[in-house]
């Protein structure tokens, strides 16, 4: 809230809502408040940009190779389960 607009979101509150915002989980009136704040606030606009960029970069840490030994162990277990031995 700012002093003259006590019912509106302050930056400190807005940044806490960003995961819900990006998930589309905010109630419509709150989502609208977030958007209206972003129209004028360069700090929060940059923060959201960074938040998104972080998520985008995190996505690149995707699957690593399955260790060969684990692969062999599990394949062995699978065959044992299906065919008994």
């Amino acid at each position, binding site marked *: 809230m700012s002093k003259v607009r006590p019912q509106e979101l302050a930056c400190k509150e807005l940044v806490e809502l960003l995961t819900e915002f990006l998930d589309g989980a905010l109630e419509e009136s709150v989502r609208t408040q977030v958007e209206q704040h972003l129209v004028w606030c360069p*700090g929060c606009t940059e*923060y959201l940009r960074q938040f998104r960029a972080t*998520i985008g970069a995190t996505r690149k*840490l995707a699957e690593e190779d399955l260790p060969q030994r*684990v692969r062999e162990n599990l394949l062995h277990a699978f065959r044992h389960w299906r065919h008994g031995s």
Partner: protein
Amino acid sequence: MPAAVSSGGPYDVPEGAQGGALAMLSAEDRALVERLRSGDERTFLAMVEKNHRAMVRVALGHVSSEAVAEEVVQEAWIGILQGLDKFEGRCPLRAWMFRILVNCAKLRGSREARSVPFSALESENEEGEKRPAESFRPPDDPRWPGHWAQGPERWVDERLADSEALLRIRAEIEKLPPNQRQVITLRDIDDWDSSEVCEALQISESNQRVLLHRARTKVRQALAGWAAEVEP
């Protein structure tokens, strides 16, 4: 339909709900189950590969090292296979798999002494690491309570394309408390959606979001000082 006879132990995961065998599963899940039951190795290995990283990370939430986590994942797969014939498909396949995994991990975690306190997982601040000076105005500010006092410094776009960004993100994720680490891994690395994560970890939507938000906030902050710098 009577509930499946329970033998107890970590592989015994109640599925909930009623329904005919596999009738409630998605077509994709049903196909996977049928292929596994018929001994299709290709399908099995593909599933193992696809889920390996996520399973290790979830297991890591309960045990002390990556090596132990990998062992737990293998044990869990044995349990999954052994339970597969009785699996009735009342919940999605992956959710069921991960619940078995979590049970194994908890059992293993409670058996071994946790010799690694959280503080030891935190690395020292690198020398000369630039800490972001972001701050908010106090609640008694005459005009802008709660607004940015020192706003976030603008990031240089190219910095996040740098491979070092990934190292920093990974390092920060490793430092997170286990439940935050699990959620950000499943949501942001492995691209699971919200309901899948809740099913697998048995947590509520709002709890999941709180954990995810805290995790993302820390990762962003960890990047902030570095990402605003231009290479000298």
